[in-house]
């Protein structure tokens, strides 16, 4: 088994065994469900909104070159620089270059999963730049030297006690079990950083082609501060984030807030159209927009799964996924977890090494139901399984299923197999639950049913014999 697949098995085993942890995650999400449903109910027609959102993203993704070029033209006209990064290394190198050329010493960041994807912080720190995560959740996991647990809620897996211990240890602050006090501790630390940083790095939720703007959605205000005070602003985004028109935001901002956080609107939704313009009292002198491919064009080329590029990174699919809720964000072992991560990671990082994420699903479809842009998530998991079986078939499985379909086509063989099953079942009973039990994966936690004395086929033949 590939290491990544084995890692997933052992991590998911560890996390599913931790019942208090699972209960904590469930509790953390329960408030979100209630508020999400309230906000959905406020829409005149949530399903209609999803349809329109899906169609808008379809338009954007299927004309990606057109909209990216329009975006570039409009934002560069106001003095922004646009850098097209074919891969992670190119993006990192460009940002490093900007930092070096401008004698940057301290960098402040607002939340961007794309920067996690390209391991930007590591690269910056290795080159001697101080990097501070300003989003509270990101700041917390940064101090713990951990990756974010969830697309939208990076520290949802931590208790206030753990956070208090962390702040005590790393910041020398007083112990407290009040979330408000803990937040204020972080607020004070960050205020200095905003005021002193030379460069602010942000993500981007949407890039508007029509007006050449990037739009950032947040609740804390840290992205606004990251992009207001430092003299350089670097905005990082995947190429698929582009939207055709400014007014598309009037649909996407409320949908992102509702699906992602159970809010009507998040606190701050800000559009940046370039660096400080002549006559403006503040704002960065330089704005650099880094457009990242990093194999997104490979997903684009897969027409069957292209809609996955419409993802607005709301996290709604993670929030409803029973696998995610029971294994947690770290089991996935890669930047993007949950259903969307399971769908796209084989495309972004290789099918062979990552197809197991598509197998680790019961295909319940809750993700597809939750997705505000109607990505056909659970069917894409099936397609990844098919693609994976073609590209790298598991010899045992292929043999087994080959035999299976032969058997299903030959009633005689089928009856023989069942007959054998009936003979061996009592034997299984003897080793049930032990190391010799072939059904151990099942019987460890569940009773396995007895084969019926006579199958329905046999009973029907006996009772209704002659009738077809």
């Amino acid at each position, binding site marked *: 088994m590939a290491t990544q697949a084995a890692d997933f098995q052992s991590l998911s085993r560890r996390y599913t065994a931790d019942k208090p942890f699972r209960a904590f995650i469930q509790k953390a999400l329960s408030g*979100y469900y209630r508020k999400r449903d309230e906000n959905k109910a406020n*829409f*005149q027609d949530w*399903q*209609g*909104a999803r*349809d*329109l959102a899906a*169609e808008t993203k*379809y338009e954007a*993704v*299927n004309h*990606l*070159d057109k909209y*990216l*070029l329009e975006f570039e033209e409009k934002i560069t006209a106001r003095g922004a620089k646009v850098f*097209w990064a*074919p891969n992670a290394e*190119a993006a990192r190198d460009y940002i490093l270059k900007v930092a070096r050329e401008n004698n940057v010493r301290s960098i402040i960041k607002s939340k961007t999963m794309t920067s996690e994807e390209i391991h930007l912080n590591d690269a910056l720190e290795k080159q001697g730049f101080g990097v501070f995560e300003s989003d*509270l959740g990101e700041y*917390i996991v940064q101090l713990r030297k951990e990756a974010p647990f969830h697309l939208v*809620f990076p*520290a*949802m897996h*931590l208790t*206030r006690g753990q956070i208090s211990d962390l702040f005590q240890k790393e910041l020398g602050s007083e112990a407290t079990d009040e979330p*408000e006090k*803990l*937040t204020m501790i*972080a607020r004070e630390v960050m205020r200095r950083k905003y*005021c002193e940083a030379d460069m602010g790095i942000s993500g981007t939720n949407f890039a508007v082609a029509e007006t050449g703007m990037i739009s950032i959605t947040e*609740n804390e*205000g*840290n992205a*606004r*501060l990251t*992009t*207001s*005070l430092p003299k350089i602003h670097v905005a990082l985004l995947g190429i698929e984030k582009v939207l055709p028109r*400014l007014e598309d*935001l*009037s649909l996407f*901002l*409320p949908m992102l807030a509702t699906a992602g956080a159970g809010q*009507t*609107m*998040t*606190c*701050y939704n800000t559009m*940046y*159209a370039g660096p400080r*313009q002549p006559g*403006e*009292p503040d*704002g960065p002198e330089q704005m650099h927009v880094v*457009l990242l491919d990093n194999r997104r064009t490979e997903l*684009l*080329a897969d*027409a069957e799964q292209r809609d996955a590029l419409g993802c607005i990174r709301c996290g709604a699919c993670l929030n409803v996924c029973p696998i995610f809720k029971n294994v947690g964000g770290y089991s996935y072992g890669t930047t993007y977890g949950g259903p969307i991560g399971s769908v796209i990671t084989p495309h972004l990082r290789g099918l062979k090494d990552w197809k197991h994420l598509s197998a680790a699903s019961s295909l319940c479809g809750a993700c597809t139901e939750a997705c505000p842009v*109607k990505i056909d998530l659970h069917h894409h998991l099936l397609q990844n399984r098919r693609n994976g079986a073609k590209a790298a078939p598991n010899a045992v499985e292929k043999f087994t299923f080959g035999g299976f379909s032969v058997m299903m086509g030959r009633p005689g063989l089928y009856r023989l197999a069942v007959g054998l099953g009936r003979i061996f079942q009592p034997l299984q009973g003897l080793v049930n639950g032990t190391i010799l039990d072939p059904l151990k994966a099942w019987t460890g936690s569940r009773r396995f049913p007895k084969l019926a004395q006579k199958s329905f086929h046999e009973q029907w033949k006996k009772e209704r014999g002659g009738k077809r």
Partner: protein
Amino acid sequence: MNGGRAIILNRIREALRNNPAPRPHTSHSQTEASAHQNGHAQREWLPKVGTTLPEQIDLFAKISEGLKTEFHRVPTAESAREVLAKLAAESGWKKIATHSHHDTDLLLEGFSLPIVRTEKGYAIDDIESCDAGVTGCEVLVAQTGGIMVSVQSAGGRALSVLPPHHVVIARTSQMVPDLTAAFDHVKRKYGKSFPSFMGFITGPSRTGDIERILVLGAHGPKRLTVLLVD
């Protein structure tokens, strides 16, 4: 200079050439909706907003208060000044920041505390040490209970987010029904010369990052006051 521009564009074009993706399964006819709403299809599905100004003001008041915005409807500029003076006294303000603007100038006539202004540039620490930032706004959005700010209407980027208390002065004529109307407004007003910063503020700063428990004042202002003058 442009890095992998040609590479990426080529990849995109190759990926899309003769390779159509299935359209999303939708159950609603978007063309119908679009035509019906003057091309603003989203209005058919987004939360309803009342058509009259009093309805919109009521909706705005209700939603913004639910978000812990301190909303004051006042009949005159004079009454707005009284509310502000009371706020300053109760909160123990020592110094505030603002920008030059018709509405803020009117509001701050006779205001006794020291005022830092942003429009000609400013030192960050001067603003950072203010107790409140007073700004105008572009519009108020009834549908979301939020306000829209921009460089011009809010004195730059930092004034409305750095001081711990943000006070907005607005007129009822600035109320618009929804986000679509807000975007229409800025497009009409700024045409092709958009400010480098504009956006929506929907309540005081908040976070749920610790056990999903709501805390106000994460990084942005802990308090947001909206003074709406007739």
